[in-house]
C-alpha cells in the first residue's frame, strides 16, 4: 500500500489538470449543443460546402446535432486523443525511464519491493487515472447537455467512455513497454507520439481517398469509432478486444522485460 499511495499521489496533479481541461471543454461543448441543434439546417448547408471525405477524416460523418457525430467530432477526434496521449506518455514512461534518469528508481528497488510489484503498482495507477479521465470526458459533455435539456442515451455514452478508456490504455501499455526497453523517456515518448501522429495521418488519408481505405485497420483511429457506438448502441467487441490486447500485452511484456532488465544509471 505504501508504494501505491505514493503512485496515486504522484499522479494527482497531472490527473487533476487533465481532468479539469476535459471537464471545462466538455461543459462548453455540452452547453453549445442546443445552438447546433436549433441551427441544424444551417449547419447542414454549411457542411455541405465541404467534401464529404474531408469531413469524415475529422469524424463528421453526419449532422453535428446527431449525438454520436457530436461526441466524435468534438471529443473523440480532437481533445481526447491529445489528452489520452499526454497522460499515457507521462504516466507510462515515468515509473521506469524517468525515475531511473532522476535517480529515484534505486530507492524503492533497493527495498524488498520487487521490480514486478513496483511496475504493477504504477500500471494500476495508470489504469485508475485513465479511467477517471475517460469518465470525465464523457460525463462532462453528457451532464452539460443534460443541463440544457438534451439528455443523450447514457448507454451509448458509457460505451464511448469504455472505448476511449481502452484507446488510452493501449497507448499507455505501449509507452510503458517502450519505457522499459529504451530506458529513455524521450525515446519512448517520441516513438509513441510519432506513431500516434502517423496513425492519425493514415486515417485521414484513408477517409479522403477510397484507394487507401484498406489501410484504415492499421490505424488506431480505424478502431476508435464512437459515432455508430453512440447512435446505434453497437458494442465494438473487436475494437475493444484489440485495444485491450495491446494494453495488456504491453503491460505484461513491460513487467516481464523489467524483471530482466539492466538498470544502468
Amino acid at each position, binding site marked *: 500500500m*505504501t508504494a501505491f499511495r505514493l503512485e496515486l499521489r504522484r499522479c494527482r496533479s497531472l490527473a487533476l489538470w487533465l481532468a479539469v481541461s476535459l471537464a471545462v471543454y466538455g461543459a462548453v461543448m455540452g452547453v453549445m449543443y442546443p445552438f447546433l441543434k436549433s441551427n441544424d439546417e444551417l449547419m447542414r448547408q454549411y457542411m455541405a460546402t465541404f467534401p464529404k471525405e474531408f469531413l469524415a477524416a475529422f469524424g463528421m460523418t453526419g449532422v453535428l446535432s446527431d449525438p454520436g457525430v457530436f461526441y466524435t467530432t468534438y471529443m473523440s477526434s480532437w481533445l481526447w486523443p491529445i489528452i489520452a496521449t499526454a497522460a499515457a506518455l507521462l504516466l507510462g514512461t515515468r515509473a521506469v525511464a524517468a525515475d531511473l534518469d532522476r535517480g529515484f528508481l534505486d530507492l524503492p*528497488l533497493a527495498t524488498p519491493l520487487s521490480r514486478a510489484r513496483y511496475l504493477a503498482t504504477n500500471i494500476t495507477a495508470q489504469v485508475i487515472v485513465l479511467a477517471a479521465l475517460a469518465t470525465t470526458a464523457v460525463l462532462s459533455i453528457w451532464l452539460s447537455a443534460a443541463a440544457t435539456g438534451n439528455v443523450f442515451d447514457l448507454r451509448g455514452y458509457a460505451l464511448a467512455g469504455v472505448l476511449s478508456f481502452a484507446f488510452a490504455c493501449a497507448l499507455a501499455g505501449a509507452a510503458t513497454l517502450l519505457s522499459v526497453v529504451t530506458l529513455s523517456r524521450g525515446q519512448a515518448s517520441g516513438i509513441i507520439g510519432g506513431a500516434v501522429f502517423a496513425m492519425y495521418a493514415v486515417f485521414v488519408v484513408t477517409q479522403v481517398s477510397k484507394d487507401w481505405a484498406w489501410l484504415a485497420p492499421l490505424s488506431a483511429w480505424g478502431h476508435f469509432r464512437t459515432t455508430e457506438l453512440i447512435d446505434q448502441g453497437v458494442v465494438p467487441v473487436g475494437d475493444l478486444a484489440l485495444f485491450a490486447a495491446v494494453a495488456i500485452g504491453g503491460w505484461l511484456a513491460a513487467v516481464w522485460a523489467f524483471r530482466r532488465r539492466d538498470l544502468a544509471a
Partner: protein
Amino acid sequence: MTNLVIEATGLTKWYGHRRGVEDVALGVVEGEAFGFLGPNGAGKTTTIRLLLGFLRATSGSARVFGADAFRDAARIHARVSYLGSDPGFLGELTAAEQLDYLGGLRGLPRRAWAPLVERLGLDPTVRIKRLSRGNRQKIGVVAAFMGREPLLVLDEPTSGLDPLMQREFLALAAEARAAGRTVFLSSHNLIEVERACDRVAIIRDGRVVQVSGVGELLGSHWRSVNLVLAAPPAPDAFDLPGVEVVAMTGREVHLMVRGNVNALLGRIAAHAVEDIAITTPDVEDLFLRLYRDDGAASPTAPGEVPA
C-alpha cells in the same frame, strides 16, 4: 567457517564495448566494515549495482547472504540498507514523507526516522526541492541508518556533507558495526575508509588490485625516515633493498623505506644519531603512489578473507 555476507567471484560487467568491471573478486565477512576504494570511474558504483541486482553480470557471480544478487534481489533487499551517492529523492515530498515512504517499503513503523533526523539536525517538514545538496544527503544517511538491516551498502555516502556531518556519519557507521551489522563502504576518501573500515579493497580500471586490512595497507607501504646524524654518512651507507635515498645533505638524510624496517634500523644504529623521525605516509600519498606507479599494486589475492 567464515560467514560471507558478500561474495563476488570473477564478477565482470561490460556495457557493450565499454568496460564496467572485470574479474572482481570480493569476500565481505559478517560483522566487518569493508572499504571499497577507487577514483571516479574505477568501477565502484558498477560493482555495487551488481551486488544490489540492479545490473546483471556479463560473467562471474555475485552472491549476497548466499543468494544470487540479481535473481533473488527482492529477498536480499529485505536484509540490506542502501545509500547511493546522489539519491534522487522526490522534490515535491517533504523529508518526512520521503522517509516514511522508504520506511514503509522496508516494513518500518512511521516516524522511525525521528531520532536520526533530530541527531543530524534536519528539518523534516521542508520540501526536498528546497533543501541544499548536503541536507538531501542527510536524508539519505537517515534512510540508510533508520532500519536494522544486517548489511549496509553505502556508495560515497558523505559526498556533499560538511565535515561535522561526515564525523557524525562515521559515528553512525561505528555504531552500526558495534551492533553487529556489516558495512560495505564505497568511497574515494581514504581517510573516511581508514577510520571506518577493517579491511579495504582497492579497485582500479575495473579490477580489484588489492584487498588487505587497513593497517596492512598502511604498514606494507612506504614510510618516510628523516635523520640528523652527528657526521655526514658515506654515500652508500643506506644502500639496502626497499630503501630509497630521497635526499642526503651533509648530516641530514631523508629516506623512504618499504616493508620491514629492521635492516635499515641496523644501518642507522651504526651512526651517531642526533634526531630521527619515522612517519607513516599520509594516506592520500599512499593512494596516489598506488595509482601513479603501474605494478606497484599487484593483485594480492583479492578474494581472500580473514580466517
